[in-house]
């Protein structure tokens, strides 16, 4: 079958009813895994990401060690059943590249010098995908790292912007991504407005790029507030740390 042109914007609204600058619903659960040192389940619309952090732990063989700092290893993995077409298990070129870009997104906040010669492993499983998986994964990983007690300068928040029917919009879903004209995932440290990941493919004019950056910046601030609220809630609302706190503040269909 050929890709058919479909109308993605009707009467100023997107197909799922969202406005141009509207995020999908976000759901956060912290420390959902028993064995991991820190973990987080993060939903962004129909994306379901599960991040597990192990470490810092001493690594062997020695040539993988850094004598001065910890080494962060980030692994992004899509479950075979997570997308419409079955994904062949194991790493592929896309996941290798995403893993590298995501590691670079988190590297700037991790205070690696506190744990020389160790590794910090971040494993993110995408259980269900609907475009924007790497951004959901980074949001989950950032919370899981904090929950694991890793010393960090800040949290990292991530979202994608794109272009559909000639309009720059926030947080594309899979239909929009497949039929859209551009996609640009961004990660940033919200407090300092520092961009730690930027990827783009498609066609953007310089002006559209600037509009996209502004949308992403605003959304990252919103996501940051949700990430922070979820972490605070875990130790504030309940005296039993084993109870998972469910933060559901996404806007979704209003």
């Amino acid at each position, binding site marked *: 079958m050929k890709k058919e042109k479909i109308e993605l914007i009707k009467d100023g609204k997107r197909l799922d009813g969202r406005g141009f600058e509207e995020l999908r619903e976000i759901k956060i659960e912290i420390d959902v895994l028993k064995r991991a040192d820190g973990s987080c389940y993060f939903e962004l619309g129909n994306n379901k990401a599960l991040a597990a952090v192990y470490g810092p732990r001493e690594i062997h063989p020695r040539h993988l060690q850094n004598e001065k700092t910890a080494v962060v290893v980030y692994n992004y993995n899509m479950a075979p059943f997570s997308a419409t077409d079955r994904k062949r298990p194991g790493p592929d070129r896309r996941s290798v590249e995403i893993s590298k870009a995501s590691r670079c997104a988190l590297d700037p906040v991790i205070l690696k010098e506190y744990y020389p010669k160790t590794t910090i492993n971040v494993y993110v499983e995408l259980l269900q995908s609907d475009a924007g998986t790497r951004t959901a994964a980074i949001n989950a990983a950032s919370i899981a790292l904090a929950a694991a007690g890793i010393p*960090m300068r800040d*949290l990292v928040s991530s979202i994608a912007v794109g272009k559909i029917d000639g309009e720059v919009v926030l947080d594309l879903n899979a239909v929009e991504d497949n039929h859209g004209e551009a996609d640009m995932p961004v990660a940033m440290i919200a407090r300092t407005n520092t961009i730690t990941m930027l990827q783009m493919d498609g066609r953007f004019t310089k002006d559209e790029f600037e509009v996209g950056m502004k949308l992403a910046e605003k959304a990252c601030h919103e996501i940051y507030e949700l990430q922070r609220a979820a*972490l605070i809630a875990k130790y504030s609302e309940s005296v039993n740390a084993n109870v998972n706190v469910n933060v559901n503040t996404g806007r979704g269909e209003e």
Partner: protein
Amino acid sequence: MIGHHTMYKVVVPGDFISDDMDRAGVGTYVDGSKVYAMSYGIVITSDKEEKIKVAALSGKYMPGNGDVVIGKITAISFPYWIADIASPYDARLHSSEFEQIANRRIEFGEMSNYLDLDDLIVAKVLNVDALMRIDLTLREEFRMGTRGRLIEISHTKVPRIIGRNGSMIKMLKEKCNCFIFVAKNGRIWIEGSESGMELATRAVKIIANEAHTSGLTDRIANFLDSFEEKGTEKKGKEKKRKENRKNAIDRLIGIAKNKDEKRKNRTYKRW
């Protein structure tokens, strides 16, 4: 240590702590003369100290000089025993540490007669060097028996298990009628009657889970009191506690003479 004059406030990495960079304490960092949290933890300000600290709510134990830890022997690499101390880094114990106790020289191949794989030790961190090599010392410390119970919690909860001026641990020992030793790395050794150890274990778990809340000592006291009647009769309790403690220490100091067969048959790498 979390004292009486404290306020509990949970922060995440990057949260603003203070405008005054002179007040940057443990768990914080300075950026542009302002102080921010570098851990997901609890802000601790006390009347006595100027510094503001952020006590992490989770994370791995990092050994410091003088810390008393409980380690588990994981390898023997002459002349060292290698011990897991619940930290990212393994620690090592030189055979000479044991020679002082054994009063003789320990030869290559003999080390397992003194400490074998999986044996538990209580040791003091002698030195941590820049390459994160951790040397332990046994001096004045002891080897642990086999009849108690070892539980492990996050090292970040240890201050609450001990309590202000040792109040929590004192209460636990008395009300559970157990010998309890809390190591800095989050490992806790308990010796006593089966029911006493069980009660202590449950109490420790509650403290660990609720370490970030206030009024904990009272809640634990109530919890322990609710079991008081079911426990051993109060009469002679204090005497028995002292006896238990004496026995425990006796056992711990002595070098175990009988190794079970399983251990003898275990092979491991020597190099």
